[in-house]
């Protein structure tokens, strides 16, 4: 908790919070990091296998094989989400399943499933990007800023 928030608490509240904190189990950080490392790595190995499969069997190059590989990973994630397995893996794996593209696909698919009962347009359409929306907004904005810096640097070099 930030200092600013803590100042607003009364002495009694502060006393209770440290009293309660001593009795609450914290997040098992080391265990979570290890699990995330293992599961994240396994997902990458699977994706590497799919990528190699496309490279050997079809007419792809190192550059073009990325798109079909991501598409297959997204498909796997969406299938696991819709049969109700992905969230159980995620509780165990944490960031390991959240960081790869599978986590992004899960956030969209789960929101779409969740709001299906409110109809296709207002339900699925309106809520699909409820969680992924902020990733897209800040992702696009960050890309814009980086591209702007790159363009300015290129112009300075050229002049």
């Amino acid at each position, binding site marked *: 908790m930030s200092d600013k928030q803590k100042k607003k608490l009364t002495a009694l509240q502060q006393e209770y919070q440290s009293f309660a904190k001593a009795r609450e189990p914290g997040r098992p950080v080391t265990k*979570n990091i290890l699990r995330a490392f293992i599961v994240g790595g396994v997902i990458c190995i699977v994706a590497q296998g799919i990528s190699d499969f496309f490279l050997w069997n079809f007419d792809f190059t190192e550059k073009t094989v990325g798109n079909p590989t991501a598409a297959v990973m997204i498909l796997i994630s969406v299938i696991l989400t819709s049969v109700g397995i992905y*969230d159980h893996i995620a*509780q165990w794996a944490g960031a390991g399943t959240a960081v790869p593209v599978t986590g992004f696909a899960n956030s969209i698919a789960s929101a779409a499933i969740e709001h299906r009962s409110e109809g296709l347009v207002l339900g699925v359409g309106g809520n699909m990007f409820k969680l992924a929306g902020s990733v897209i907004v800040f992702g696009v904005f960050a890309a814009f800023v980086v591209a702007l810096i790159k363009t300015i640097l290129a112009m300075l070099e050229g002049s």
Partner: protein
Amino acid sequence: MLHGHQTWLFNNQPTIVATAVVGGPFEALGPLADDFDLLHGDLWLEQDSFEKAQKKLLEDACAKAIQKGGLQKQDVQFFLAGDLLNQIISSSFAARTLATPFLGLYGACSSSMESLSLAALIVNSRAANYVLCGTVSHNGAVEKQFRYPTEYGSQKPPTAQWTVTAAGVALLAAEGEGPKVTSATIGKIVDMGITDPYNMGGAMAPAAVDTITAHFRDLDIDPREYDLIVTGDLGRVGYEIAADLFKKHNLDIPAEIFKDCGMMIYGPDQQAEVLSGGSGCGCSAAVTYGHLLNRMKKGELRKILVVATGALLSPLSYQQKESIPCIAHAVSIESSQ
């Protein structure tokens, strides 16, 4: 009647003549499965949304309680209910089916004892002969309302709790066979400034302790008069904190008579899913009206105090960084034998 600051004594002995408890598939795997009147194998209850499933749970429990009480639904004079969805739709929609005069309540997970204490007050004052009261929660519907989509893969911390899929309903009568509701202590809001919605137990424990302390102060009795003092849904984390708070405040409650419904409803093999314990307003209602009253009927318990705890936050309020105001209501139930 009013005794001390915030406690009602029910001298006319409102009687719980019938109760009904309906649960979902995950509750069917728990240690209290035998205490449910009806268990659904399908989380959707053959409905096309979780919200409708939650309404169905409450409707089923109401119908069962009325049937067990040997009444028709027109014999019930008032229906008091609450749930956790926006605008308490499940309660209102179930009341539409019942077509009984209805008072909707919201006290988050404390609604179970809020409704029971008010129902007892109505019956005790002879304002009605039969009052039905109950609460419901559904894992899918409530998680959707308060947290992330059910299938979203987020890692919950060990302090998080699992919303119980269950409805518990009690039928109170002015006369009849069954356990008596003898007193109720209405709690006040306690806010210790906790803002983490994944730590409800830690937020609610001081409210439970406040109400229990008030109960014994108002009635001037010893905690050992009760065979069991049970909190609604503090979970393991909140339970430990509450037990230590009692010690700190010199209220001597032996560990063997202090329990928590959220820790009773699921077994050790369900631990990985439920984390700190069960929660939701179906939790305390289902455990009390099912398991605890059954034990009372068997003569294992004579007098119990049920303290339902509620966290009065909304998804909006915690996003705006508001702290979580909490409340607890205590109701004492005594065996008639």
